[in-house]
């Protein structure tokens, strides 16, 4: 018989309009002793204002270096069911689309082998199976793979890539985010499952500059859709928006970062040469404006959270890649591997690629991976005169 915990603190959090995670833990606790002990432990944390988890040891499934986060409570005597409480990271399908059948299979496996609690999803994008014992890992893994699922990344490896819904349900997708996310994931299964990098290596795919998976903020490789040709414009629809109350002048023209729009109260003009493809005008009037036809992606590099050298945003590496084209995609993969090699060779332990670039210098990094420096990569050229001069061979000879 499972213990019955009094949870006055947590009960408070069953109230109110927002969906309650306490309700979820209780639902799970009804069927599952681990979740029941979790409820008790969490109430205790609420009372003590202190977590009760220990640093995880290394646990996992055979042949994989990642995908499982080991976790143990520091009060195993009092909460024996969660003395082990490891999570599994399961690689989600592109765009988080599911059949109900697949979900039922997952639930079934998890109810039999784990806590019955999940995160849908983890913030990298995985399905998180939240809490089980070491012994259950292999059985879960076997059933998962038989059902067509596999573990995601953890540790110093490629992490589970993720992508926005893209062409699945968005008119602005400039490339096939779902497909390319899937392709990268499949291509680098080994890198995903067997950590051998200096640190994490994350990929995120957004179909346009709205960046609905926040790729630029949290992926080492951020792939963001864009287009090259003119914004498509339907003046009649522009008029309708104006009639329906859009203040085209203040809401659209004044907000254009390129200051490249003109509106005379009737016709809207865009100087597409100056347009930065920021999406704003399109976002405001989706029926009237649309990205052009010559679509592709920008590849950016280096984002990460603050530890240790401060947070980084990704920065432009390739300003335009026709990523839907298989050949260009292969070229891109070659570059990815080249970068991995350089970073693995020269990177320090726990140094993300963005930090690595900052340490060795973007110019040197580009040289090492064989990419030509171009002004699209920078917001502005250096403003300090501390230049390490490198004269061309020719010039040097001339000088001698």
């Amino acid at each position: 018989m499972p213990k019955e915990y009094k949870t006055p603190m947590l009960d408070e959090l069953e109230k109110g309009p927002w969906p309650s995670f306490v309700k979820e833990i209780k639902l799970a606790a009804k069927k599952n002793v681990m979740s029941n002990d979790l409820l008790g432990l969490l109430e205790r944390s609420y009372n003590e204002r202190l977590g009760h988890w220990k640093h995880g040891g290394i646990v996992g499934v055979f042949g994989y270096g990642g995908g499982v986060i080991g976790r143990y409570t520091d009060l195993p005597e009092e909460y024996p069911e969660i003395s082990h409480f490891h999570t599994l990271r399961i690689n989600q399908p592109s765009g988080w689309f599911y059949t109900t059948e697949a979900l039922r299979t997952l639930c079934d496996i998890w109810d039999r082998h784990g806590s019955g609690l999940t995160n849908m999803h983890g913030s990298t994008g995985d399905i998180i199976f939240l809490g089980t014992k070491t012994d259950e890992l292999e059985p879960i893994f076997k059933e998962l793979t038989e059902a067509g699922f596999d573990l995601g990344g953890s540790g110093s490896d490629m992490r589970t890539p993720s992508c926005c819904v893209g062409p699945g349900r968005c008119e602005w997708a400039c490339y096939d985010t779902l497909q390319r996310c899937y392709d990268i994931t499949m291509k680098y299964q080994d890198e995903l499952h067997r950590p051998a990098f200096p640190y994490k290596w994350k990929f995120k795919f957004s179909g346009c500059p709205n960046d609905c998976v926040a790729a630029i903020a949290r992926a080492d490789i951020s792939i963001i859709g864009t287009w090259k040709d003119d914004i498509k414009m339907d003046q009649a629809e522009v008029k309708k928006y104006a009639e329906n109350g859009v203040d085209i002048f203040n809401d659209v023209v004044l907000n254009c970062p390129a200051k490249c729009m003109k509106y005379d109260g009737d016709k809207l003009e865009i100087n597409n040469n100056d347009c930065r493809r920021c999406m704003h005008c399109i976002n405001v009037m989706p029926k009237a404006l649309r990205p052009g036809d010559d679509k592709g992606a920008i590849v950016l590099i280096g984002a990460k959270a603050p530890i240790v050298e401060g947070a980084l945003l990704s920065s432009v590496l390739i300003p335009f890649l026709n990523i839907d084209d298989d050949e260009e995609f292969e070229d891109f993969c070659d570059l990815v591997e080249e970068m991995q090699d350089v970073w693995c060779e020269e990177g320090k332990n726990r140094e993300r690629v963005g930090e690595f670039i900052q340490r060795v210098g973007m110019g040197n990094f580009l040289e090492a991976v064989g990419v030509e420096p171009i002004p699209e990569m920078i917001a502005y050229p250096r403003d300090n005169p501390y230049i390490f001069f490198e004269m061309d061979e020719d010039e040097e000879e001339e000088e001698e």
Partner: protein
Amino acid sequence: MLDVMKDRITDIGPPDFKEYLPPAVKKNYGQWKYHEILEAGVLVHVAESGDKLYTVRCGSPRLVSTTSILFYTEIADKYCDGFLRFTSRHNVEFLTTEFDNVAKIKAEMTEYGNPVGGTGPSITSIVHTQGWVHCHSAATDASGVVKAVMDDLFEYFNEMKLPAKCRIALACCLNMCGAVHCSDIAILGIHTAYPRIDHENLNKLCEIPNISASCPTAAIRPATVDGKPSVELIEEQCMYCANCFTVCPAMPLADPVADGISLWVGGKVSNARSEPKFSKLAVPFIPNNPPRWPEVTSAIRKMVEVWAENARPYERMGEWIDRVGWPRFFKLTGFEFSKMHIDDFKYAGLSFKRSAQITHE
């Protein structure tokens, strides 16, 4: 064990998403023309073919039981041909080609406890992390704070009455698994006590050079304590980042009194209008006050209200502040400005006000 190792399948990767796409999505894949937001949480996407696909977005606690997932599958089976999806911010979305289903899904999901909203100029789910539910590193809980904040801000979830989107995210420690650093409002668990060094066990559990190297401010030095190899801490140099603890369990920082929450404001991710920006410090420290963290919820409400009242349409929190200036932000919110707000890390110099462009009131 042997049993489970037999016929073991590995490295198959995730299922092919194409198997999981609803028929309307498959048919109109890449052929969407435009969309409209019909009401908070309800979108319609219109395809070149003329097909219409309605989406009902439902709030989710993210931490969900199989019981609830199974409930979602019931809804999806009933109204959505057996398909559903989750969003990048962990909401659950039901896609249907029948307009009539929209109201039904909405009703059943709301009834179950998953209200509909989060589209357009609203506040959608708070991206968050594990907190006391699962992580050893947490300086606060995640789900509980999120629940408290969203309960308080609920009117902004199921109505679209803000100037623009407002993205809130929470991370329970400086590792920032919630990648909160580019959020309109970031809730960040923060320690303010020094690591307590377990000299007894340190050398057994950890490699001393790794610990020293882990400290961004070089506050940790190898030292022999009671005859055992260990480390010593230069306290003035420690700013509680916990990176040493990540590397070595013998240096815990968690503390019931000194742990708490900091609030950050004005970040964004999208490239719309302005370039992506980091969130900036608004409130350095609020002690943990479970179960409802009232000081946190009210500070956040203050920010949201002040912004909502003063910003222009389409102006994200950070864009508004950039236009009117940080002095205005501190004045209107009433948040105290202190030395702690002034950057002293790597790029500090660039954060000083290096111009005479100043407002006066």
